[in-house]
């Protein structure tokens, strides 16, 4: 030994220095790793705090309580109690009268209109639906909570500063005085905003909800899953288990990998050109959105499925073939069940990507303003990320918090999907 190393030993100063250097390098490497993780966690925390901080107030809605006199002479002067007659009445007048009763000083036309703006413009629809549901209410006086209009909702949440000049804010000093008076009377209250989860989009922030986008996203994802899962898995199984290895399959493999890297808007253009313009499918429909997203998700599913199939030990295939199982039996009885956890994980990752995709859907018209909750795959619809995009673009103050709230709903969806992936993987996992 000593001859070989020219008299040097591991206890020499140089060797020790080398050892110390190595130890320091390893410690440093560990700290780099920790720093990377904390940086990632920090960014995530900032993201969540920003979104939740901006969005939590959207889950509350300011309401104003009014005593409404459901005057028969205004609602149903002929006493027919027919739906058509009831529908024709002007319920906004009832709401305004109830306000004027509290504030008799508001006498001019302009004042009255300003006063009526305290309450959401959807108040008349609310009254109409109430009367339609129970015609016996006509003639009585009811105490009803109405949504405050978006500006006064913002005011009560402190989002509109009171100390700026009157002409620089959307609510006048007089309106603020009225609102404060109502609050002093105990007629203003913040309640949980159920409407946010039960209605679709609206021009008025206080009436806008997420349900339309949620249903649109669900319908779109169903189409995506139904199309891309079977096609993706069959393609992966064929390429991995049955296809001969030759130039053609190499070429197909390269193209699938390329497809996974194609910008998603290109798929949107393809959907526009092929599905809408050539096949004439309906615009803005979850059906077409799902088809476009399926094209986008396919490469992800194929690549993940192939990796999962490749991870099944060849000894299992040999065992099955050696037992006289046909190639198809080998795949369906043994290889596919063993690969299923990996395939499902890949599929759910692909679906999560599809859930968050905006650009291709803009191309096929899913960016339209739609106030109805879609009822079928061919109805006009929007999806969650597009809804976020639309609201982020809207000028009204009330949409700021709703944008963040919609992002929270989108994130909740993603978390649910990821939990589902973990649960499915656990269920199907087998050890060998």
């Amino acid at each position, binding site marked *: 030994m000593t001859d070989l190393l020219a008299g040097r030993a591991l206890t020499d100063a140089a060797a020790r220095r080398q050892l110390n250097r190595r130890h320091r390098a390893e410690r440093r490497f560990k700290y780099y790793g920790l720093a990377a993780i904390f940086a990632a966690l920090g960014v995530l925390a900032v993201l969540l705090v920003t979104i939740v901080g901006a969005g939590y107030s959207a889950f509350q809605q300011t309401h104003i309580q009014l005593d409404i006199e459901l005057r028969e002479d205004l609602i149903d002067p002929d006493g027919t109690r027919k739906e058509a007659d009831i529908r024709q009445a002007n319920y906004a007048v009832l709401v305004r009268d109830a306000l004027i009763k509290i504030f008799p000083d508001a006498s001019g036309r302009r004042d009255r209109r300003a006063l009526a703006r305290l309450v959401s413009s959807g108040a008349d629809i609310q009254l109409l639906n109430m009367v339609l549901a129970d015609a016996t209410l006509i003639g009585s006086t009811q105490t009803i909570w109405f949504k405050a209009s978006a500006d006064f909702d913002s005011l009560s949440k402190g989002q509109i500063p009171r100390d700026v000049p009157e002409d620089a804010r959307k609510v006048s000093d007089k309106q603020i005085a009225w609102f404060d008076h109502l609050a002093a009377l105990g007629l203003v209250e913040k309640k949980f905003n159920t409407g946010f989860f039960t209605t679709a989009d609206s021009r008025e922030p206080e009436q806008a909800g997420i349900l339309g986008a949620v249903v649109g996203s669900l319908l779109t994802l169903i189409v995506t899953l139904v199309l891309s899962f079977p096609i993706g898995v069959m393609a992966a199984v064929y390429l991995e288990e049955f296809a001969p290895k030759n130039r053609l399959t190499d070429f197909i493999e390269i193209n699938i990998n390329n497809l996974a890297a194609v910008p998603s808007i290109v798929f949107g253009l393809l959907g526009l050109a092929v599905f809408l313009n050539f096949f004439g499918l309906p615009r803005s429909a979850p059906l077409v959105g799902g088809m476009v997203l399926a094209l986008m998700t396919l490469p992800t599913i194929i690549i993940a499925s192939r990796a999962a199939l490749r991870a099944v030990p060849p000894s299992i295939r040999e065992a099955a073939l050696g*037992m006289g199982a046909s190639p198809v039996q080998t795949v369906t009885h043994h290889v596919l069940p063993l690969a299923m956890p990996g395939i499902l994980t890949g599929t759910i990752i692909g679906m999560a990507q599809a859930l968050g995709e905006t650009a291709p859907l803009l191309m096929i018209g899913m960016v339209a303003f739609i106030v109805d909750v879609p009822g079928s795959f061919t109805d006009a619809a929007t999806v969650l990320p597009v809804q976020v995009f639309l609201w982020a673009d809207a000028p009204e103050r009330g949409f700021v918090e709703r944008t963040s709230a919609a992002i929270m709903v989108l994130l909740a969806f993603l978390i649910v999907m990821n939990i589902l992936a973990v649960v499915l993987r656990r269920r199907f996992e087998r050890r060998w």
Partner: protein
Amino acid sequence: MTAMPDQDVEMGRAPAPMPNKIRTQHVSVYYGDKCAIKDVSLDIESNRVTAFIGPSGCGKSTFLRCINRMNDTIDICRVDGSIVLDGTDIYDSKIDVVQLRARVGMVFQKPNPFPKSIYDNVAYGPRIHGLVSGRGETDDVVEASLNRAGLWDEVKDRLQDPGTSLSGGQQQRLCIARAIAVQPEVILMDEPCSALDPIATARIEELIDELRANYTIIIVTHSMQQAARVSQRTAFFHLGDLIEFGDTEQVFTNPIEQKTQDYITGRFG
């Protein structure tokens, strides 16, 4: 040299000739351009254990896998010549590979039970070949196969446990039980004991000797002692050539070829 590889080895008893089960004639196997087996002709006797020995890479496993056409699964593999099982050429285009593999079972080097229950492992073959119908019949086949593989007493109370929960030796016996559950005529064993400890190996060797009464067995092995212990006929392969084929006792005590002599005395390999 005293052509005894090991003093403890109990030699295969000098066998009376049995009818031929398998005849192979001028079999050559190619992987792409590479020739793995060159013009091998040998006959496998019925109800005998035939051992293939030889150094690593000599083609003995390749040749074994020709007999149930497992090489079909390798794209670049090509087999020339004829292999005749009970009078029919197994490479005939009319032969159904699935049925052939039911007749010629296989046990692999590494125990490879399916990641299913012990019961399902054994029942799988009979089920896919339609050899059983109903729970009762399946139960009987499972019990009989496990019994024959000498595993029944160890697993009869835990048939629903995964096959992979057994020890290595038990797993290999489970694989043998799985192979014999479809009543094959021939069982191919590709180094079945190479992953096992000596006690488990001894257990499998005993089992092979018992199975000989009902099946024709071909075993590939690296261990010359094992070949000497379990087989009646031995074939020695070297670099794709069949060097010598004869009764085990003769091959080990009085080899004709110099290469065989060198190999069994440990001069190479």
